[in-house]
């Protein structure tokens, strides 16, 4: 009887482990990682080396030119709000555009306005369709780095300053 009880407890403990691991996955995908600081991480699942089939009208200027960064932010992600706040105060964002991933376009537009992102080229991506279909990305905040309209790198990040030091207009390699 004690063995049965003990193994039942072990199964419950195992469920706790799985729950935490899944919470960790969710946290990673939504960018909410409180203890990870400002690390920048390569997104290996990204379709690097390809150009999108089509660019949203607002981002047409990013279809060519030297290093360009498209930030993918989500309206459902706390870290994304933090990053948006950082962007509003930066002056070194001439090569930066923002794609706001959201389930609802008006919510995305409100996110752009509320976080002072209107001064940057921006696109509201309903259901994250453009980002996921073109680049295979479902993580935010994420940075898509382009050269001449071709994706050369995709990074997950939580701090724009750390990202900026990794991807700089003066650095031609990421």
């Amino acid at each position, binding site marked *: 009887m*004690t*063995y049965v*009880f*003990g*193994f039942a*407890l*072990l199964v*419950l*403990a*195992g469920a*706790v*482990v*799985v729950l*935490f*691991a*899944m*919470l*960790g*996955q969710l*946290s*990673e995908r939504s960018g*909410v*990682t*409180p*203890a*990870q600081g400002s*690390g920048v*991480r390569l997104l*290996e699942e990204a379709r690097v080396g390809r150009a999108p089939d089509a660019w949203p009208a607002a981002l047409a200027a990013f279809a060519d030119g030297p290093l360009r960064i498209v930030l993918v932010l989500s309206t459902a992600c706390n870290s994304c709000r933090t990053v948006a706040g950082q962007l509003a105060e930066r002056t070194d964002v001439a090569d930066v555009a923002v794609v706001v991933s959201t389930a609802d376009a008006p919510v995305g537009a409100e996110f752009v306005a509320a976080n002072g992102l209107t001064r940057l080229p921006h696109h509201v991506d309903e259901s994250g369709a453009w980002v996921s279909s073109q680049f295979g990305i479902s993580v935010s905040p994420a940075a898509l780095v382009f050269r001449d309209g071709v994706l050369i790198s995709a990074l997950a990040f939580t701090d724009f300053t750390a990202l900026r030091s990794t991807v700089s207009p003066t650095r031609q390699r990421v």
Partner: protein
Amino acid sequence: MIGAGLVLGLIVCATAAVYVSAGLGKFAAPEHTRRAVRELFRLDEPTAHAAVRVLALVELAAGAGLLVPAARPAAAVAAGALGLAFAAAGALGRARGTATPCGCFGRADSAPLGLRSVVVGLALAAAALAVLGGASALTRPDLLPVGAAGLTVLLAAWTWRDIVRELIRPRPTPASDH
């Protein structure tokens, strides 16, 4: 002798907790370990995928087996082999200077395979050897699953302490109208 039995019981519970947690973590979030395995052993994606699944199963079986008297000797051998394999992977990771997180316990930001892995792997192998050699000294083997369950929960809370901290952090309450 009760003291030796208690210490051995703790070793069995701790080792079982580590392997159960490691196996379940890999089932829940296999991509991190898969990435590390692919890089370290230069495997293609399908092979790495299968290898991680098998590894998770073996870890789970070894952990659970340590708690069952009939299966304990075989499970201890498996646990020792896994410990040595982890140590070897750590040595290889250190030699290659890998920076890819090992994906241990399913964490994306776990340390890369290196010196720490060698130490942990050797400790697990030593624990397995102690279990193999001293199984007869266990005084209350029926309580091992309970002990392992408790240590599994504590290990999960420690491994994911950043999430635990975030979950229990008091939220600011909105201002109320007077």
